[in-house]
């Protein structure tokens, strides 16, 4: 099935190459990522996280082209692009202080209203968490705090790097439910990196499969309801 039959294109990657020293991290990657929820799946070291970081210009490719909504990615100002296409990285990534200070910081950068209560609720945290010290949070709470911090910037695309990799099954299910609800409530697009093909089925409608830095498959998924 061709993507253009599936939905509007968000990102187009053509012949994207990236090397670190002698190692080819991404090798002639060509893929389309549509509006909606996409999973980038593959084993460890496949280049999934690097591909995600390319999408909001935390890194640029050595060769090839990437476009976002039909415009070359490198024509966007990296700072405003990162507020529109928000990456939630793997831990640890919160600033020292409370969850509230983290949310205020992100809101100020994006010149948005720091509505911590709404963002915490969207991320599945009680508003009381605003005053909690980030050093005293569980891994699952940190993950949700990072999500709340990203949401205050009102992004159009969320890039999620293995959002449940460090969680037990119960916490994982809860985060997945939050992500599914976000897609419904905010009509936000999600690009999710996961090593778990089952998770891709639960959260995404489209997948890009990577192995050894190359695309080994791309296409629609039959989403399994949570």
């Amino acid at each position, binding site marked *: 099935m061709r993507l253009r039959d599936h939905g509007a294109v968000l990102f187009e990657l053509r012949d994207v190459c990236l090397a670190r020293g002698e190692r080819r991290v991404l090798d002639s990657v060509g893929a389309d990522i549509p509006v909606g929820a996409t999973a980038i799946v593959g084993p460890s070291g496949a280049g999934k996280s690097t591909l995600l970081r390319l999408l909001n*210009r935390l890194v*640029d490719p050595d060769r090839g082209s990437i476009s976002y909504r039909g415009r070359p990615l490198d024509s966007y100002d990296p700072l405003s692009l990162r*507020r529109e296409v928000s990456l939630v990285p793997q831990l640890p990534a919160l600033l020292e202080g409370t969850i509230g200070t983290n949310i205020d910081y992100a809101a100020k950068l994006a010149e948005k209203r720091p509505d911590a209560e709404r963002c915490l609720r969207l991320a599945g945290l009680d508003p009381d968490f605003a005053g909690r010290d980030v050093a005293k949070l569980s891994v699952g709470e940190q993950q949700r705090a990072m999500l709340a911090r990203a949401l205050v910037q009102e992004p159009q695309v969320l890039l999620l790097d293995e959002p449940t990799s460090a969680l037990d099954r119960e916490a994982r299910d809860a985060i997945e439910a939050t992500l599914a609800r976000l897609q419904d409530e905010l009509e936000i697009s999600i690009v999710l990196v996961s090593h778990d093909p089952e998770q891709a089925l639960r959260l995404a409608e489209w997948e890009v499969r990577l192995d050894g830095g190359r695309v080994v498959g791309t296409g629609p998924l039959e989403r399994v309801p949570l």
Partner: protein
Amino acid sequence: MSTSIHVSAGQVAATLVLVALAAAVSFWRRADLERDIGIATVRSFVQLTAIGYAIKLIFEADTLALVFVLLTVMVVFGALTARSRAKKVPNAFWPLLIALATAGATTLGLVVALGVFEPTARYLVPVGGMVIGNAMTASAVALNRLGDEFADSRARIEATLALGATAQQAAAPSVRRALRSGMITLIDSTKTTGLIFFPGTMVGMLLAGANPTDAVRLQLILLYALLGSVAIAALVATTMAHRNFFTPAQQLREQ
């Protein structure tokens, strides 16, 4: 105020007994430092004797051009020495060179402009040497810490960039900690001066027979000047060097 004393070569030679004692301690406790003690003793003798003659010539010539040349050499060697302590910082030499030059020029310029010292070789050479030496230590410590910060906090810095922060905003906590590290040693030693140790200038003046009040006042002038120079050096070095960790597109460079 008495301004000169005579120290004979025999007096210097006599203190080699203490060097021998240091070597003996090392040998006895197998610290394996005898060779280093020997090298340190010979180098200090050669370097200080050479600089002593150079300073004598500069004092006699008393031209500001020669003072400028000597201070420039100190700044360049200071930056090269400090760079070896800041190996994790990309291209650390230029930030260090500019930090030392700025600290030296600003501090000496201010003490001359405020009428504390006359703009002559007799004042500018020793004060410049102290200012540049302390600025070198402070900026080396600051950049050493900055390199460790970027190695340890890489994930957090990139996560902040991912929120749309500029490189400067993302690096701010690391730069703040590096600046503190560079300045804190001198601040602490200034707090304890006179209680735990006597600074070298004061000791030298007292030995030379100066009035203790004069010795104390001169030492205070130098301590305060050094605080300023250390702050300027650490500020310039960290402000310039942190940019070398980022690309123009506000990305962290690969290490």
